[in-house]
């Protein structure tokens, strides 16, 4: 069971690039683009519920994986996932008890991450799209979808961590 968490992360990592892309709405005539960040959500929750060092560990490993497989430029995702996991892994019992707060943190991290990637891609000359052009069609739908997925994930993930770590639910 020790490898259940990285296994689930790897599963999300694979699904983002394969199954999600095959059924992606924008490849089926939809105007809206959805960018899945499910693996990042789980890494963030690991950071919040288990502590910053756990979060950073997975952030760097899966960041490297993401960079090699899905991205043409090495380093962008490793650094971004690592930095945002570091910043948003506020692992206090006050936050852990309030799922709303956890959700808010995760959502802020996803928004920050999306803008970080957009900034890096503009900086490296990979995209020249203006912010207005992508805000309503790409960023906003992605925030909403990832927010919804995070809302669905956060309770099961917390109970899972608590049952594995042997902590009380309160």
């Amino acid at each position, binding site marked *: 069971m020790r490898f259940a968490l990285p296994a689930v992360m*790897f599963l999300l990592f*694979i*699904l*983002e*690039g*394969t*199954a*999600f*892309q*095959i*059924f992606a709405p*924008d*490849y*089926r005539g939809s105007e809206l*683009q959805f*960018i*899945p960040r499910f693996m990042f959500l789980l890494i963030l929750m690991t950071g919040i519920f288990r502590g910053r060092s756990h979060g950073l560990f997975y952030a760097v490993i899966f960041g*490297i*994986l993401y960079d*090699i*497989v*899905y*991205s*043409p*430029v*090495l*380093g*962008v995702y*490793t*650094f971004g996932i*690592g*930095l945002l996991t570091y910043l948003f892994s506020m692992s206090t019992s006050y936050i852990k008890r309030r799922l709303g707060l956890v959700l808010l943190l995760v959502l802020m991290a996803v928004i920050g991450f999306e803008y970080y*990637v*957009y900034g890096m*891609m503009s900086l*490296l*000359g*990979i*995209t*020249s*799209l*203006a912010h207005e*052009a992508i805000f309503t069609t*790409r960023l906003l739908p992605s925030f909403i979808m990832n927010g919804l997925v995070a809302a669905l994930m956060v309770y099961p993930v917390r109970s899972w961590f608590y049952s594995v770590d042997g902590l009380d639910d309160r």
Partner: protein
Amino acid sequence: MLLVCLIFLVGLIGYSLSDQRNLSWPEQFVQDSVGTVQSIFSRPAYLLSNSIDAVNDLRNVYQENQVLKSHLDEYASLQVELGELQRRNQELEDMTDMEEDLLDYSVRNAMVIHRSPDRWNELIGINQGAQHGIEEDMAVMTSEGLIGKIREVSQFSSSVQLLSDQDAGNRISAMVDADETVYGFMEGIDDESGHLRFTKVDIDIEIEEGQIVSTSGLGGVFPDGLVIGEIVNVETDEFGLSQTALVEPSANFYHLDYVMIIERSASAMEDFDAVEENEEDAALEELLENEQDSEEEGE
């Protein structure tokens, strides 16, 4: 700590942006092992998505059938014409002793195993790599037209840069075959309309809507004559020195499941080798059979 990370980041980015870089072995290892898992996940997903599409298609079957029937008549006459043209081409080739045609190419099939989830890059992964004979910059197409070129190759998988990728290095030599041949480059997509851009066309040459853009075969391992798309709009570029045409791609960039990798002019030679080997094998077998026969006779 953060400073060290930043320096590391800049170094890595600089390393990966350098041109003419081959994948290092850790990258190849990760890509191949992840690629294997990805193919396991892709196959059932394609099955599911295809069966959904099949149900949708059922609704239009009757109308499509009518249209196809009308096309069938044209097909017969085209077939005759094709035969005639092939015969004449053969004669002309014989006359000029042409040994190798730029149009000769060999085709490999591959399954798309992943597509980059962030829409910033238009990259796909396929389940064929160096071990299957894939090399960098080979042309990749679907049955409808060109979609891109091989970007990185590892042993058992490789990644394809689609024509729609906005990377500055994404450039393919292309041409319009009208009264005279017009050369230019395919360079990414137009942000507003989403069409491909056919750039660096000489300002004096007139190109029109509806003309077909195809690969020119001038650069590297690209064969010529692979259809890219149809011109929908022509405009003068910002400095007034050249023209840019917007091209509606003939291939569908959204539904990619199986693609073809095109290699120029290797097919003829491979076929030749294969025939030779087969002949040798046949001769060997004959020899063995004869020996057996004689042994049997001896008994």
